[in-house]
């Protein structure tokens, strides 16, 4: 189909099928549709919108049709995205299954595995979470100790994962598990898909300094994972995980990009501007100006590297630079938000539900430079892979 025709038809279909209430910006967590066995739609429109998009294969437009997608080309998928954006259409379905497991399954899965797992992801029937990190492992992810012992057609898994987002609401978990006890550190890990609906899997939410969080601890006590649900070869888990981490990194960067409160809007909110709209504190104003410059620079850099990518230059290890710069910048933004809010920023609980939001966002931003590879890890990667500095 010519791209112009595709655009016209897409526009018409969206116009006809996207319910008006699904054409408003996401205002809160509750507006996101995550799917899964226990999912309760927050509105009838949310349900209708998902069903219609599933039918078109447009929850995962670039996936092959046989796996629940629409088999769109890169260009077509981009047009769909543009047209949805043009009417502010919400994403019908978000999930770690779509962002993370999907790409891994498509690259490393067998046809049977794809057939079994991809369509339920595309339809929002199964919600996945990610089990990588472990207590004590941190940046040294490959030092993980969860153990899987082969027993006939399945592995018996024991161990503990942390930072498993939404594990308490998920149906399945994709987890890194040490299955080859005698192999070198990085070569003993397998990538297992584990059904969480079994007694051997339990979860416990983690409370953060910013308050409640989607993060959980997940415990495996003699949990079973079928060998048929091992992605890739035994011991190939680290390779697959690294492939996926690059996806995650890109996600965190775009999250860190500007949007929401900034120190200027914060100062207007707290009244800390003079009659002309100038920030009242001249020294704070200087700090904010330097943030603005770096914000413009980061925005321009994202575009530049994207454009260069479109011209065939790979992002490669420069993703580490974007991750480092973007997250450090986001932390600075939140610090200056708090300064501009002054004592108003200290509010934690109050009459309005939004009371405490700036403080919680400020605290939450501290994790940006830890999750998805710490800033220190990114600097190491830049040193070695971009700057070719010698090893220690």
């Amino acid at each position, binding site marked *: 189909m010519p791209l112009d025709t595709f655009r016209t038809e897409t526009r018409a279909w969206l116009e006809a099928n996207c319910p008006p209430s699904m054409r408003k910006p996401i205002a809160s967590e509750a507006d996101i549709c995550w799917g899964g066995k226990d999912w309760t739609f927050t509105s009838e429109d949310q349900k209708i919108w998902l069903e219609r998009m599933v039918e078109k294969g447009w929850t995962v437009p670039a996936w092959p049709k046989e796996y629940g997608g629409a088999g769109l080309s890169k260009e077509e998928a981009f047009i769909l995205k543009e047209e949805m954006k043009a009417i502010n259409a919400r994403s019908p379905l978000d999930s770690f299954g779509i962002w993370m497991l999907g790409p891994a399954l498509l690259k490393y899965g067998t046809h049977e595995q794809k057939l079994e797992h991809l369509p339920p992801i595309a339809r929002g029937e199964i919600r996945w979470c990610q089990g990588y990190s472990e207590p004590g492992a941190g940046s040294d992810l490959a030092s993980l100790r969860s153990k899987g012992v082969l027993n006939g057609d399945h592995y018996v898994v024991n161990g503990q994962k942390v930072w498993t987002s939404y594990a308490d609401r998920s149906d399945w978990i994709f987890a890194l598990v040490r299955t080859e006890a005698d192999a070198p550190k990085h070569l003993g890990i397998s990538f297992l898909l584990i059904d969480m609906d079994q007694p051997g899997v339990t979860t416990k939410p983690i409370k953060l300094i910013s308050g409640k969080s989607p993060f959980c601890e997940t415990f495996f006590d003699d949990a079973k994972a079928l060998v048929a649900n091992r992605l890739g070869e035994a011991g190939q888990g680290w390779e697959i995980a690294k492939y996926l981490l690059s996806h995650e990194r890109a996600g965190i960067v775009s999250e860190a990009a500007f949007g929401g409160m900034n120190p200027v809007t914060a100062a207007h909110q707290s*009244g800390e501007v003079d009659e002309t709209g100038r920030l009242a*504190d001249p020294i704070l104003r200087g700090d904010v100006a330097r943030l603005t410059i770096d914000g413009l620079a980061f925005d321009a850099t994202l575009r530049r590297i994207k454009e260069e990518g479109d011209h065939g230059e790979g992002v490669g290890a420069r993703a580490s630079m974007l991750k480092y710069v973007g997250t450090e910048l986001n932390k600075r933004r939140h610090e200056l938000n708090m300064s501009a809010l002054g004592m108003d920023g200290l509010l*934690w609980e109050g009459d309005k539900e939004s009371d405490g939001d700036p403080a919680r966002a400020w605290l939450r931003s501290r994790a940006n430079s*830890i999750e998805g590879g710490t800033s220190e890890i990114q600097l190491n990667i830049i040193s070695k892979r971009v700057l070719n500095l010698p090893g220690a």
Partner: protein
Amino acid sequence: MSFVLNEEETMLRDGAQQFLEEQAPVTALRALRDSGDPVGFSRDLWAAMAEMGWCGILVGEDHGGVDMGCAAAGLVLEQIGRNLAASPFLSTAVLGASAFNLAGTDAQKAAWLPKIAAGETVIALALDERARHNPSHITTRAAKDGNGFRLTGAKRYAVNGAGADLLIVAARTEDERINLFLVSPEAAGVTRTSRRTLDSHVPADITFEDVKLDGDALLSGAEDSEAAYRHLLDIGRAAQAAEALGVGQKAFDLTLDYIREREQFGAPIGSFQGMQHRAAHLYGELELARSLVRRALTTLDTQPAQAPLWCAAAKAKATAVSRLAAAEGIQMYGGVGMTDEYDIGLYYKRAQAAGEFLGDDAFNAGEVARMSGY
């Protein structure tokens, strides 16, 4: 003036260290928080602090105090900071007592200082009206009314305001000068709204609607009441800087302990040069802040006319450094530093709140420039 503690000061510091580690460790703050304590501090702890003689640290001996001076108060505050001990020490024993010392008449001093020294009164300074501290932005008015006054205005985030028995309110009199007034929080026309802040303290927003005050509500013992008001804030800045220093220093100490032990890639993370250089830099910053804090406090005691510059500099530096120490701490802890289970995040929150009180680093840097004549 001396940077080195004398014998009396050393005893005070060591006593405060031991007492607070035992009586008011971080778990005590967590307990207050988790129980939703309405005032955000423990009356029992406050009584015990009075027993220790701390409440009278800035009260003359003739009024039942021990009159040890600001430098001594700073030593206690540093330990309070280290333990995140929630108490009305700064608002009452430092700011409250100093307000009477600087601006009280003999009768006012005789009436209130003994109560402060005995730990019988909790005082809150009702000062700021905007989100960011600005000592000149006072629109609360005390209009003359017979022998007394009528007070009208709105104050925000009065520290310890929820638990205070007495408010000291900055208000403009008809001559446009800022004066301090004693107001009972129970008086007709006074409305307090508790605010829970991120550090689990409970300041209050307080409105005054045509509140009737007697003539002796005005702190009228100072020759220049506005100068007394400004000097009171200088004392508050140095004192708050001392607490912030304790917050930052303990955050750093906790972090050092952690990175000495915690292993990644087969080695303690504190052995990586990237970590080491940042830790060493932070050490230098804390030493700078420590010197300014001590210098500001001793200058208040011995050369008060020269104190404002040092107080502003100390507050600016302590604010910036305590935030940095806690932020670096979270980063060096990594993921667990983000969890409520570990204490480092509580230090970051307190550093932020202490930073805003009486002006943050940007505000106080501006003051330093102004006082330096540029």
